[in-house]
């Protein structure tokens, strides 16, 4: 009798352990499968929008509106940026903080992206160094930002996405900035890794159809 109960309990414990391990596999790898597919879809939709010549001036929530290129993450590394930072939106790709500036504008063009799992767009955010280019491609222009700082902050520190990073949420913009946020450390939500940059130049696509030289750097 005791033996049967003990065996039942030990089998239960082994099963629970296996399920937990499987859950880690799900979070780290399986979510990537769906998110990679979603990213491909939104990227394709955006390219189609651009070639058909009917891009919407104000993107809807969840809709892709720009591409971000980060040569440091790898040659040709690019992701379509979607509007909004809700979980559903971040599953498709890096999300633009609603209300923050649009690419190239005065203010703070701010994005959030997953660190591990769900496409892991910003898994390598910690390798960015000051001076590294981050190129944001819109329908008609390339906006070249240069990384200025990398910091780790508390998740409550929302001033990193203020018009002037570190300033008031409704403060004045003192320049054209870029912000990328992700979870830190990997596999944790304890802190946020935040990379700031500043706009170096904007080039029209009529001038540079294949993109600025910064794309070939690093």
């Amino acid at each position, binding site marked *: 009798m005791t033996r049967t109960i003990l065996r039942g309990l030990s089998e239960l414990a082994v099963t629970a352990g296996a399920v937990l391990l499987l859950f880690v596999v*799900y979070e780290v790898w399986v979510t990537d499968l769906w998110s990679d597919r979603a990213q491909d879809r939104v990227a394709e939709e955006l390219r189609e929008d651009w070639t058909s010549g009917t891009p919407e001036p104000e993107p809807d929530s969840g809709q892709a509106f720009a591409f971000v290129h980060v040569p440091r993450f790898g040659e040709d590394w690019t992701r379509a940026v979607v509007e909004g930072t809700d*979980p559903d939106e971040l599953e498709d790709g890096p999300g633009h903080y609603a209300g923050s500036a649009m690419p190239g504008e005065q203010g703070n063009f701010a994005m959030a992206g997953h*660190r591990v799992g769900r496409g892991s767009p910003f898994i390598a955010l910690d390798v960015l160094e000051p001076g590294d280019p981050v190129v944001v491609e819109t329908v008609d222009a390339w906006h070249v930002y240069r990384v200025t700082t990398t910091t780790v902050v508390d998740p409550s520190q929302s001033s990193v996405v203020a018009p002037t990073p570190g300033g008031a949420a409704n403060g004045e913009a003192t320049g054209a900035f870029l912000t990328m*946020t992700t979870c830190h450390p990997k596999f944790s939500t304890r802190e*946020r890794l935040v990379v700031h940059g500043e706009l170096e130049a904007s080039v029209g696509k009529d001038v540079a159809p294949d993109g600025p030289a910064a794309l070939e750097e690093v």
Partner: protein
Amino acid sequence: MYAWIWRHLPGPLAVRGTTALLLVLAAAALLLFAVFPALDGLWEPRP
């Protein structure tokens, strides 16, 4: 439970082994592709 399943699997050892492996894979697939996705969003999402 596992012993009970093993005793009730039909066929010779090789067949039983294959069936058992398939059962494990089916359970894993059910968790990975149905149960865990359904549980998504029940806790704090991580950016």
